[in-house]
């Protein structure tokens, strides 16, 4: 007789009320109720965020940058309030250290092309890990190409755990930067970023953390982590697309040259006397920002805080355990990533069924998962799989949805027989 998975606790919040807050969850796909398990790719938006976007686009709208008229003043205040909200959310010492950008990818590229171009020289080393997303690999490869620096890679073990001893061995006098993901978008592994930051600093290296998969799912405190830069994206944390954040230590941001030139990032512009730049964070916010997006991100933070990151993390942990226990019962399934400290991301392969086919079969059941290499080709190669299926959970998912996933997986072999 099949063993029932351990009884799962109920979430520390009203799950039905929460699900009612997300209109997109309540639709049919191919005649079946949507089961949205692609949250690592992007997340659905609560009504409060949607209403905020509609309000600012539809009513309280003007360009920011402290125009004299009433609407401009209101919107500028709301934009800067959002900056304060973000600083509070990640416990940054100051809102001056919050740069609004398009997303985590842009944030990492900014650091590579400003801090990196000034501080990295030929023969220097940049240390990343084998589980990084391309966004935290390619900008460093490009920087190495430009400067003659060398990219080193800390390995990942068969359970998807970062080899900290190997990382320690790779840290040396030439290491200038360690760039590491907080939570792996494929394995779900939560890395001990505070410990890594401490070790890196002992070696005289700076630390950038890719927090894209962390901020939506656990409480992040950049001061407690002790890193130098932290990057994340709004659309992965229930906020709008096209908005994201780079947090950086004030002294580092102040020393970095500007990136994009244009309006707002300047003090004065003069053909004869040259141009002087604004202070932080404006120095890195050229042009009209996605201010409505930033205000929407602030609303997303407010929503998350009403539920509480601890309650969110606890429920997602329950869902993850429930799913891990159930999925290993499906014949032929191999889960990739079984770190003891792991976020609610399940990547897997199945004997005799290609991820792409699994994805289509699940899609026909209304189940949204992602298939492929998930922007982590080196990791896929390391695990010897050209592609995986990835189910990534959020606090608005239910155990019933996981049951639906498991039932559909059982069907896969029937379909391909």
């Amino acid at each position, binding site marked *: 007789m099949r063993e029932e998975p351990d009884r799962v606790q109920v979430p520390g919040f009203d799950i039905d009320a929460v699900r009612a807050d997300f209109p997109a969850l309540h639709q049919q796909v*191919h005649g079946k109720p949507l089961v949205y398990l692609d949250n690592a790719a992007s997340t659905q938006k609560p009504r409060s965020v949607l209403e905020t976007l509609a309000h600012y686009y539809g009513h309280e709208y003007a360009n920011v940058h402290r125009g004299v008229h009433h609407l401009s003043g209101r919107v500028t205040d709301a934009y800067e309030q959002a900056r304060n909200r973000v600083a509070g959310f990640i416990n940054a010492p100051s809102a001056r250290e919050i740069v609004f950008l398009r997303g985590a990818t842009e944030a990492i590229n900014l650091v590579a092309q400003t801090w990196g171009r000034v501080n990295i020289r030929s023969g220097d080393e940049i240390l990343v890990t084998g589980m990084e997303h391309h966004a935290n690999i390619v900008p460093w490869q490009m920087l190495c190409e430009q400067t003659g620096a060398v990219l080193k890679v800390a390995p990942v073990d068969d359970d998807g755990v970062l080899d900290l001893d190997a990382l320690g061995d790779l840290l040396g006098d030439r290491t200038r930067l360690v760039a590491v993901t907080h939570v792996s978008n494929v394995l779900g592994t939560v890395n001990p970023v505070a410990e890594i930051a401490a070790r890196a600093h002992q070696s005289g290296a700076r630390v950038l953390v890719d927090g894209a998969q962390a901020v939506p799912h656990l409480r992040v405190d950049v001061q407690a982590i002790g890193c130098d830069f932290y990057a994340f994206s709004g659309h992965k944390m229930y906020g709008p697309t096209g908005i994201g954040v780079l947090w950086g230590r004030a002294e580092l941001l102040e020393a970095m040259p500007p990136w994009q030139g244009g309006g707002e990032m300047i003090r004065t512009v003069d053909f004869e006397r040259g141009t002087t730049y604004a202070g932080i964070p404006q120095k890195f916010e050229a042009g009209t920002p996605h201010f409505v997006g930033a205000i929407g991100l602030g609303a997303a933070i407010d929503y998350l805080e009403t539920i509480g990151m601890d309650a969110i993390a606890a429920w997602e942990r329950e869902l993850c355990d429930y799913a891990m226990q159930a999925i290993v019962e499906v014949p032929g399934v191999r889960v990739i990533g079984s770190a003891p400290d792991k976020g609610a991301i399940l990547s897997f392969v199945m004997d005799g*069924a*290609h*991820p*792409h*086919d699994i994805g*289509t*079969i699940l899609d*026909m059941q209304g189940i949204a998962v992602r*298939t*492929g*290499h998930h922007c982590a*080709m080196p990791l*896929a190669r390391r695990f010897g*799989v*050209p*592609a995986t299926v990835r189910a990534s959970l959020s606090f608005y998912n239910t155990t019933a949805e996981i049951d639906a996933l498991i039932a559909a997986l059982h069907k896969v072999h029937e*379909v*391909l*027989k």
Partner: protein
Amino acid sequence: MELRDLYEEVILDHNRNPRNYPYRPPGANHHAHGFNPLCGDEFQVHVKVDEAGVIEDVGFEGAGCAISTASASMMTEAVKGKTVAEAERLFHAVQDVLTDESAEPSDETLGKLKVLTGVKEFPMRVKCATLAWHTLNAALHDQEGTVTTE
């Protein structure tokens, strides 16, 4: 739109038992590599064309999803013994039926390949069905570089 439209009997059979796979014909004189990195389908197509321009033998290697594998397998069966010109016509016919809204699948031209038309209902999978064909085409024209349909 039903799964059976895509995972139709013939396709499933070709996926489970791909013909001319893994097979590199002795004396093969045309080769090409096809790769769709986003989904992980990757094939090498090997063709032996004789002096009269007839495809004497053909095989493929690599790995991919059920649709790409089945399409590659059916392709090798369909082009073996055909002239290069006939194989090219088949390639265009398959391309058209999968990507052109108005194209009418002709039983006469496509023959057994007609089962591939079901893939049209699943636009995200069309690239899987066409990968091997583009790779074959590249091989026959001795094109350099890796082929992709993404």
